[in-house]
Each structure stands twice: as structure tokens, then as C-alpha cells.
């Protein structure tokens, strides 16, 4: 029985994600959004989700469809502001007190996910020290400089957008598609990748950007 992580559809790939799941979603600046998986999850209509996503409001991300559908209990992100003066779906729910929010500096967001995948429960960072986002956080001085203690972020599921996958789940990324994908893939119990091409043939060793051992399912989208 050879390893083959390819599944037939996004719907099949997300079929066992349950109520209340913590879901990481890759994507930043318009590249690498795992939108097919997000839409498939929306169609499952499981609620109480916690989303770990860089932006709750990026116009090119389908994250807002989960929020609009009322499936999201909490968002952990570095950006939650809609463009323009009108309020985004997230902002409307947030204003109404119907959605929880944790905002982190983007580097803290990234490294807390990396830490979650790397078995590091907590680490110190200078970001947010002396600011409102650092309030209430434990602080400590090292070599004359002040830092805040940040804890790891893990998830039940990670949705990652890649370019090419092979049957082992190895991935390549196109350009800035990479962003949070590799870190998120390491930090979730179940990682699902949507890719342009899912091939049987192994990707060459020196072209692989995310080892397949971090990927559980692959779907073409």
C-alpha cells in the first residue's frame, strides 16, 4: 500500500471537520489563500469555529464567507479592519459582540504558529512590549531589553495553498504563495493542501518546499 494523500475533492477533504474546530488558513497580501477549502468548509455549515488567519477581512480571501455564515466564534489574526468606511462582515459581528478577537503583531502570529509546530510552548519577543497589545502579558528583561512572553498556537486543521503536490504530500509554492503555509502545516493535527497540480510522481528533493510529512490530504483546486 503506497502512500497517497490525494483526495478527490475539497468537500471530501474537509468532510470530518467538526463543530468548534480551530482552523488555520494560509494567505497574505492576496497570495496563497486556500479558498476552495474555505468554501467547502462553509458548505458543511459546522459552527463555533476559531479561525487562525492573518487577516479577517482581506478582499481576496473567502474567509469572510465563514464569518458571514455565522460559523465563526473567534478570530486570531493580525488584521481585522475592512477597507473603506463601511464595516466588513467581521466588523459588524465584532461590533455586535458576536465574535471574539485576538489581535497579534504579525511576527508574533507567525512565530507562535511556528512554535506550535515546533514543540515550543512559549517564547519571548520584543514586539508589543510597551503597547496596548502587550498589556496583561508577562514581561521579562534579557540583556537590558524588555520582552513579552507569547504562547504557541496550534490548530485542529490547517488549510494551505500550494502549487504542486505529489502523492507523498510534498509541496512547492509559487512566489509569495508560501507565506503562512509551511508554518501552519506544522502546527495542526490535520493539514489539507489545495494545489494547482497533484501528481503521483515525486517532486525532486531539491524542489520540495514543505515536506509531505506535514501534509495529510491534498486536493486539486
Amino acid at each position: 500500500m503506497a502512500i497517497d494523500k490525494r483526495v478527490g475533492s475539497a468537500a471530501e477533504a474537509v468532510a470530518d471537520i467538526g463543530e468548534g474546530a480551530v482552523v488555520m488558513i494560509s494567505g497574505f497580501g492576496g497570495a496563497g489563500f486556500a479558498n476552495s477549502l474555505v468554501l467547502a468548509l462553509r458548505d458543511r455549515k459546522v459552527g463555533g469555529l476559531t479561525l487562525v488567519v492573518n487577516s479577517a477581512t482581506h478582499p481576496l480571501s473567502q474567509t469572510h464567507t465563514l464569518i458571514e455564515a455565522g460559523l465563526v466564534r473567534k478570530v486570531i489574526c493580525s488584521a481585522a479592519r475592512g477597507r473603506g468606511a463601511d464595516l466588513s462582515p467581521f466588523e459588524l459581528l465584532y461590533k455586535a459582540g458576536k465574535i471574539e478577537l485576538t489581535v497579534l503583531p504579525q511576527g508574533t502570529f507567525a512565530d507562535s504558529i511556528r512554535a506550535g509546530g515546533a514543540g515550543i510552548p512559549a517564547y519571548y519577543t520584543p514586539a508589543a512590549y510597551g503597547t496596548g497589545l502587550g498589556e496583561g502579558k508577562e514581561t521579562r528583561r534579557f540583556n537590558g531589553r524588555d520582552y513579552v512572553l507569547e504562547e504557541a498556537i496550534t490548530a485542529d486543521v490547517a488549510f494551505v495553498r500550494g502549487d504542486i503536490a505529489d502523492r507523498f504530500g510534498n509541496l512547492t509554492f509559487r512566489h509569495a504563495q508560501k507565506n503562512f503555509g509551511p508554518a501552519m502545516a506544522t502546527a495542526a493535527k490535520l493539514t489539507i493542501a489545495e494545489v494547482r497540480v497533484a501528481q503521483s510522481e515525486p517532486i525532486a528533493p531539491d524542489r520540495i518546499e514543505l515536506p509531505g510529512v506535514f501534509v495529510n490530504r491534498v486536493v486539486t483546486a
Partner: protein
Amino acid sequence: MTPLNRQQIAWRVGQDFENGMLVNLGLGMPVNCSDYIREGREVVIQSENGVIGAGPLASPNAADSDLVDAGSRKITIAPGGTVIDSAWSFAMIRGGHIDVTVLGAFEVAANGDLANWDNRIPDKGPLVGGAMDLAAAAKEVWVMMDHTTRKGAPRLLGACTLPLTAPSCVTRIYTDLAVIWRDAEGFLVKEIVAGLSREDLQSRTGAPLRFAPDCGVLAAPDIAEKD
């Protein structure tokens, strides 16, 4: 007295990038600085989404939705550039590898405190992005902004009134009226636009100004403002 327009401020900042520097440019006005690097200098532009060596905007027919900067602009990769993942990109930032980050700001205090992420807009969600990491960890934090608010209130202050991005981090401020260095004693004016007196500049500033012995004229070539 003719204040610089925003492109001219970007030009002025661009003149100060040295050869080989690793520079991060914030969203909005600062990204324009890369258009004004001096002839013969190579500067590596870092975008916090992981593009190390960001090139100019892509031409419409070469635009690639997978090749964007942190501001979602479709860009190119400069010779020698590459793309790394976000965790590594912020390791680069947090680790102090960025020589200069140029950021927009609402307020800068004489002790270097920076407020550039939360303007307290009612009901709008928060957006911090990479600002706190950059401000806390870049070797130098340069701010470019209008010297005052639209209503004429100073943005250079004795203490910030808005939520801080990072304490005591700003090293230079480039405004439409002046170039100001920030040191342990506060604000030191290095250049001032022609036709503006030192007293006038001080009156538009919310903290004491010192003037460098070699304080010169802030001038830029004619560059049209962009949208």
C-alpha cells in the same frame, strides 16, 4: 514656503538609502521610496510577506497574483531576490537584520515613541500587521509623514496620545517641512524647507526642536503627486 508633496518626501528618504542596505517599506507612502534610490546604489527591499529583493510594480501584462508584496501590490522580484515564508521573514525582522524600516505614522514623540497603528476609528476593526515587529526590531526606524494633521495639529509631540506601536524606536522623521533626527535628547532638525523659519517650524511641532549646526535646506526635484 512650499511643503514637499508625498512623492517628494519619498524621494528625500530614498536619497538616504546606502548601497547594500536591507530596507523594509511600510504600506502607503513609504513603498514609493524604492523609486528614488540613487543611481548606482543597490538596495534590497524586504516586504514582510517574505519577498526579499522586491522589484518595481509588475507591468499589467506581467502581473502575477502569486507575486505580491505585503500591501497586495503585484510586484516583480529584483535581481538576486527570492521569497521566504512568513515565519522566516519575521525572524529576519525580529532578529534585527533590517537596516532601515520606513513607516508612516500618526504621531512620534521626542523620546522616539511611535504611534502608527491605531487611530481610534470607531467600530473599525484593529489592524496591526507587521508594524510592531518592525518598529521594535529594525536597526533604524524612519518615519515619513505630514508634519501636522489636516487640521494643523502637530504630529511630533512630547508624548504620543494615540496607542503606541513601539516605545523609543524612531531615529528619523521625514516630513513635508523638515528632516529631523531623533536622539537621546529629542528632536534635532537637519533640514528645513526654504521660506519656513525655525520659529514657524517650532510652532507646528509639539516638542522642543534643536537645530543641527549644519542644518540645511530641504529641497526635492519637481515630482508630481500620485494618487
